[in-house]
């Protein structure tokens, strides 16, 4: 009798499990797109496009971070870029300390990441472009000169570039802030 009833319930139990699995996968896949809270979305909310902004990170002693689990020793600048009207150029001066540039898609996926080791003459000169704009740039390149810029292919026409530089001591912070203050992000 009990076995009979269980037997009749079995398809429903299996059905519940299957639905739970599908719901789980759908949520996991949708979270980055829907969560307006991705770091990329939050950092770029309200920010003007193609302009570099130095994030204060709060005065010493405060507990403000530019985003959760950010390294408080880092000085951070962000640029929300929009390639719909042409490639965007990033110029970042580098010093002796660690510095990185990370290009994020709006859903938070990292597209490109490079550090000051890629700098030439103490500067990272980056051009962000869509595949189409890249082809255009390449067709305009002179044949006899090497390209000076680091050209990065953006599969999305928009996103956020996050520039971070390490201030190992609090005393170094003003100098690093001044360094990132000299960085620029603008339409090419």
């Amino acid at each position: 009798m009990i076995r009979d009833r269980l037997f009749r319930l079995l398809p429903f139990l299996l059905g519940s499990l299957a639905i739970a699995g599908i719901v789980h996968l759908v949520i996991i896949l949708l979270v980055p797109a829907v969560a307006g809270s991705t770091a990329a979305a939050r950092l770029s909310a309200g920010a003007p496009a193609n302009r570099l902004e130095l994030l204060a990170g709060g005065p010493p002693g405060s507990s403000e971070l530019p985003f959760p689990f950010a390294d408080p020793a880092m000085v951070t600048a962000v640029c929300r870029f929009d390639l719909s009207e042409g490639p965007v150029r990033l110029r970042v001066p580098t010093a002796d300390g660690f510095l990185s540039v990370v290009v994020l898609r709006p859903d938070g996926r990292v597209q490109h990441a490079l550090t000051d080791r890629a700098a030439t003459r103490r500067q990272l000169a980056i051009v962000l472009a869509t595949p189409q704009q890249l082809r255009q740039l390449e067709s305009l390149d002179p044949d006899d000169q090497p390209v000076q810029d680091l050209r990065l292919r953006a599969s999305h026409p928009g996103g956020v570039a996050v520039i971070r530089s390490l201030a190992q001591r609090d005393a170094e912070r003003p100098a690093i802030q001044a360094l990132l203050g000299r960085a620029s992000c603008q339409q090419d």
Partner: protein
Amino acid sequence: MKRISTTIAFVLMLAAGLAGGIALTWAVLDRWLAPGMTRHGRWVAWMKAGAPDADPYSLASMARRGEIPMTPSEGLAFFASRDDGGSELDAACHYEIAGAFPPARAWTLTIYTPDGRVRRGPSGRSGFTSAEALSDGSRVAIQLSAAPQPGNWIPLAAGGRMVAALRLYDTPLSAETAAPGAGRLPSIRRVTCP
């Protein structure tokens, strides 16, 4: 009668599936150990989160916490929410994080609240960088305690859970080649606990 009970079972199946799926997702995203993570002793790392081919679980975790992951070209980030004995880190206790820190151009050790804000004690310090920490040869020992300690001391304010993060910038270690063994990352020893 039979048709009604079938309908009820069907509705229950849908409800149970939906609730189960949401609960499962919540549990996975809320844990400090999710698919896509690797463990090294008490330290865990999302090795793939910052890579262009990041897996959906790492991406969802990062999105939910609003975090920007450390990318492989920048270095490696490790997080610990428990001590070597397996108990959750509690700001009311005294811990010693010590050992030979892995080779890197620079490292930082930071103490966070579970939601990713920095815990600052009365003196304002929430962590150490490799340039700030006093070392004994290659060995570094950092004290986490509410009461002042000699040497490298991170003052803890109030009680509550906390998360330690160790970041290695420009490290020769990489996710693929030399994932450090448990012995090569600093230990997290509970000294006293009230």
